[in-house]
């Protein structure tokens, strides 16, 4: 018999070990899945866990995909810690792509010369504003009408995607684009500066890492971050202390929307170089998993983003090299999150093996 016994104190050890065990469980499930599909499990795991890190180009691709994941996950971690359940980072990401990409399009269409480094801060501001407006709608509806932020933020994802489609099928469509739903390619002046010539990773990565560090300082060292988290941990204590729950709501959503918007803008003027209806490949949703795998800790988000990027790339490689569906990525993401939530039980509880009632009967 296995029994769960409450720990007197939540285990710090398991708070760290839980993601590791969850990853091990995911690997185990993956192994079984590869065997069931008649593939060599070693080759399969290699595709997901080793190939994405094999070589400079591969690492650059991981860094490229990690950038939006880190940015979105940081904002979500702040939201979740504040008990604000924003699951619409995807929509805020798309809005950032529209405002950031729109700015690049304006510079391109009007042939205004600007240096890459001069454009860099402008696109950050544009993307942030777009994401903040989209998240601001959620905050407003929750604040004024007590609408569920979970539903509103999720619904706004679809609105954002349709808005993007409306633009690229209509007003923003490239006149010389053979009627494809896409904008013209942005002028190279507006592209993100790259870290290494010839590799796609860009300086947005550095921005994401700096923001991660700043977010860590905010959450652990400032009174503002403390107020946010008390609101999430014990709303009655926050009311008792006089911390404004409205302020916490707006702060969490505006910061999170802004960061997702920056991620979207980076994606538009970075690897995409134009706007299409498919500017996001689900970064905003994947970032939810990243935030939880990263223990809602800013630095954990960075590690989680790297792991989930490897999954994303591994899925593509599995499709091209092993002929497996790239939907495997989604399966592994799900297994990882599921295992993680299961393993988190071990933070508050310990397992006891054997029949404990024997001692009573024997005495």
């Amino acid at each position, binding site marked *: 018999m296995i029994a769960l016994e409450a720990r*007197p104190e939540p285990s710090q050890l398991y708070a760290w070990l839980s993601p590791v065990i969850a990853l091990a469980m995911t690997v185990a499930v993956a192994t079984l899945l590869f065997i069931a599909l008649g593939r060599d499990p070693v080759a399969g795991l290699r595709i997901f866990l080793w190939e994405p890190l094999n070589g400079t180009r591969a690492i650059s691709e991981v860094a490229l995909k990690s950038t939006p994941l880190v940015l979105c996950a940081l904002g979500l971690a702040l939201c979740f810690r504040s008990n604000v359940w924003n699951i619409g980072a995807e929509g805020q990401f798309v809005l950032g792509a529209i405002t950031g990409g729109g700015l690049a399009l304006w510079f391109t269409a009007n042939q205004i010369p600007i240096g890459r480094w001069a454009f860099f801060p402008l696109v950050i501001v544009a993307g942030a504003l777009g994401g903040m407006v989209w998240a601001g709608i959620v905050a407003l509806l929750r604040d004024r009408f007590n609408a569920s932020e979970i539903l509103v933020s999720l619904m706004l994802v679809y609105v954002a995607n349709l808005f993007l489609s409306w633009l690229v099928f209509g007003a923003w469509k490239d006149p010389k684009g053979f009627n494809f739903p896409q904008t013209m390619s942005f002028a190279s002046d507006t592209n993100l500066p790259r870290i290494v010539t010839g590799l796609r990773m860009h300086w947005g990565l550095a921005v994401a890492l700096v923001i991660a560090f700043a977010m860590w300082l905010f959450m652990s060292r400032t*009174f503002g971050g403390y107020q946010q988290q008390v609101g999430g941990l014990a709303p009655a204590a926050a009311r008792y202390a006089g911390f404004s729950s409205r302020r916490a709501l707006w702060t969490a959503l505006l910061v999170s929307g802004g960061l997702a918007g920056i991620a979207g803008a980076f994606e538009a003027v970075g690897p995409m170089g134009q706007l299409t209806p498919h500017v996001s490949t689900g970064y905003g949703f994947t970032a939810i998993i990243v935030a939880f795998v990263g223990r809602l800790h800013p630095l954990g988000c960075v590690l989680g983003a790297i792991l989930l990027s490897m999954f994303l790339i591994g899925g593509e490689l599995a499709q091209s090299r092993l002929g497996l569906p790239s939907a495997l990525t989604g399966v592994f993401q799900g297994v990882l999150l599921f295992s993680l939530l299961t393993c988190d039980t071990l933070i508050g509880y310990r397992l006891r093996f054997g029949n404990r009632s024997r001692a009573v009967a024997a005495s």
Partner: protein
Amino acid sequence: MTDRLTLTGIVKHYPGVIANDGVALEVAPGEIHAVLGENGAGKSTLMKIVYGSVRPDAGEIRVDGQLVSIRSPQEARQLGIAMVFQHFSLFETVTVAENVWLGLDPTMSLAEVSARIVAKAGEYGLDLDPARPVHTLSVGERQRVEIVRALLTEPKLLILDEPTSVLTPQAIERLFESLRRLASTGCSILYISHKLDEIRTLCSRCTVLRAGRVTGVVDPRDQTNASLSRLMIGAEPPPLVHRPARTGEIALAVRGLSLPKRSPFGVDLIDIALELRAGEVLGVAGVSGNGQQELLAALSGEDSRSAPDAVVLLGKAVGSASPGRRRNLGLHFVPEERLGRGAVPVLSLAQNLLLTRREAVRAGGWIARGALMAQANAIIGRFGVKAGGPNSAARSLSGGNLQKFIMGREIDAQPKVLIVAQPTWGVDVGAAAQIRAALLALRDAGCAVLVVSEELDELFELSDRLVVIARGRLSPPIARASASVEQVGIWMSGLWPGGPTEPVQDIRDLAA
């Protein structure tokens, strides 16, 4: 005659603590047996073992002479054992009737359960609406649900864990009568309490626990408070010194405060008026659920819907001010719920300081961690909080120690007005004495202190003047010297001149 319940050699280890260490207990049929001990002495664990919600590591349980292994509360109920927990085991999201239903014969309809609740509650003078969701009930009302739920199972052995803290003196009398009647039918009662007077009134035998071991089995009627205290804590608590009050200016004035209830099961506050002077303790008596929560929220600022001049703090109209602004003006508040309101359970003691203290917050919101740790250490030391250190999580502390820390946090801020709800609820005797002494010291230093408590003994011990709250109205003040427990008890039913229920319509009003 075979004992109803016999425990021998009960041992229960928790990680790091021995809650019960070879405990023996014998209860005869029809006996009212007290289990006395400080919080943390192992009383609750022992009772949970009898009730099957905790398994002992070793030891033997006999019911009516039969060796039994009680694996769950269901099995305990089948053996005729019922329990009223001190910490409630109610589902918050469903109604009173649905909660009670869970422990009863599942074939009964909800309407029948409701009818039986009303009948049983009436029998014992406990006012209870079966249709109310539990999350809207106050602490005292929740305890009533537990008592009625236990009585409905018609038990052979009833365990009561500190049941009287939420009753008026008259209702306690009625409960005792009911318990004696219950006992005379052959039902045994295990009565857990720290109120020595009650134990002496009600019980014929008393098992005293200290640190998980039995320190004595005595007839409490032959004992004095002092001798029982010695068995319980190894020493007598220091007597409380109550110096005459030197009152000053009016620190807090409430005039014409009326607030409609926020939740459908709250209480409307109706035309509340009170004056609290510097250097005095004003006690607010009342049965829980009569508007205490609402009044406290209106005073602390958690409910800031009042007209600005309905609450005047040190000459400033603050009726619509936030808790933070009132705190800046010198009003500090210790709420009834320690975990989740007075402190964030998972955060450390040091971090919990930041709820109401800003000394360690530097320009730009930067937290000076060294200063915060030093401040927490100082409070832990000054108020004798038993904790691992400033980094211990709030929830790792016992109720009494956390209360000492929270009281310390607010007293250390040198408040001009201190409002305290249930200062010693669930706190052991030693810590309670210390907390009361600290409150009186604060009063002597010129602070205006408002104490809301459901324990009349405590109010009579601490207060210079008393007011009574009933059905959202506040009685006029009476000086403690001229007040009697009987009078205050009657006022607790709203029966003061001009109070909400002047003529007695129904005898149940007296107990409600």
